[in-house]
């Protein structure tokens, strides 16, 4: 059952990314481009996504996941260097290409060679990330 639920969840995510226009990099860069022809679509997508997700979080207390196991515990509210630096690096890449991890996978079949290269570079980045984190933490301990 876990795998069926995972496919349904992924399918909804992919369908939502596809229908919302978030796999069109001009719409993402249009949202970030406040001094250009600003495109507010991303705010509608975010707002639309947060609503059902907030309801889901409200259902969590006192229950167990349908497929068994336990719900994830809330993360410690620590705001460290890795969270901020990582988000800044991610945001820079997001702005450069107009792609983040979800839409990059959703558009893999229709995003052309550029989309494939982006995903390969992202995977390479994810592969070296643990070493980057280690180096950072040993140079200046954070969090």
């Amino acid at each position, binding site marked *: 059952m876990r795998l069926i639920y995972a496919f349904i969840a992924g399918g909804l*995510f992919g369908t939502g990314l596809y229908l919302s226009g978030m796999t069109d990099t001009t719409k993402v*860069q249009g949202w970030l481009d406040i001094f250009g022809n600003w495109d507010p679509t991303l705010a509608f997508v975010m707002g639309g996504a947060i609503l059902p997700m907030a309801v*889901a979080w409200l259902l969590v207390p006192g229950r167990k996941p*349908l497929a068994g196991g336990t719900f994830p515990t809330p993360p410690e509210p620590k*705001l460290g260097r890795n969270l901020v630096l990582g988000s800044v690096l991610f945001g820079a890449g997001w702005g450069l290409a107009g792609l983040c991890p979800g839409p990059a996978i959703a558009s893999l079949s229709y995003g052309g060679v550029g989309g494939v*290269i982006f995903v390969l570079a992202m995977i390479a980045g994810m592969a070296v990330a643990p070493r980057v984190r280690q180096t950072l933490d040993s140079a200046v301990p954070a969090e």
Partner: protein
Amino acid sequence: MLSSIPTDWIWGLIGGMLIGLGGAVYLLANGRIMGASGIIGGLVDRSGWSTGAERLVFLAGVFALPILLTPLVGAVDTHVTDNWPVIIAAGLLVGIGTRLANGCTSGHGVCGISRLSLRGMVATVFYIMAGGLTVIVFRHILGVI
């Protein structure tokens, strides 16, 4: 042309609700947080291999549904740049950054903000500011993108 603008917003809202519904299913059924970078990254750095099948099937759903929908709804032009150095730099930054921050637009943005997580909100503020600044510099000042 004016009428095409609100249509984009409506599709954005509908698509967004489906994204949130996907996150709700993943949480309530499997007890997992739907963060794309964490799901992919755990496969890449092997930290998530114990739940590898679940991750792969989730990603298969993300990848496959647009293929099934394209004949019904129509093709989407992604307008991905053909500037390869820019794509490669962007991919590396997204890969390293999301793993360092433990989340991206779906994990920190959708799943974090909806549970009123301070980490999620702080991450979202920083990646949107960095993204905005990047577009200003690389589009309006350098003219690269």
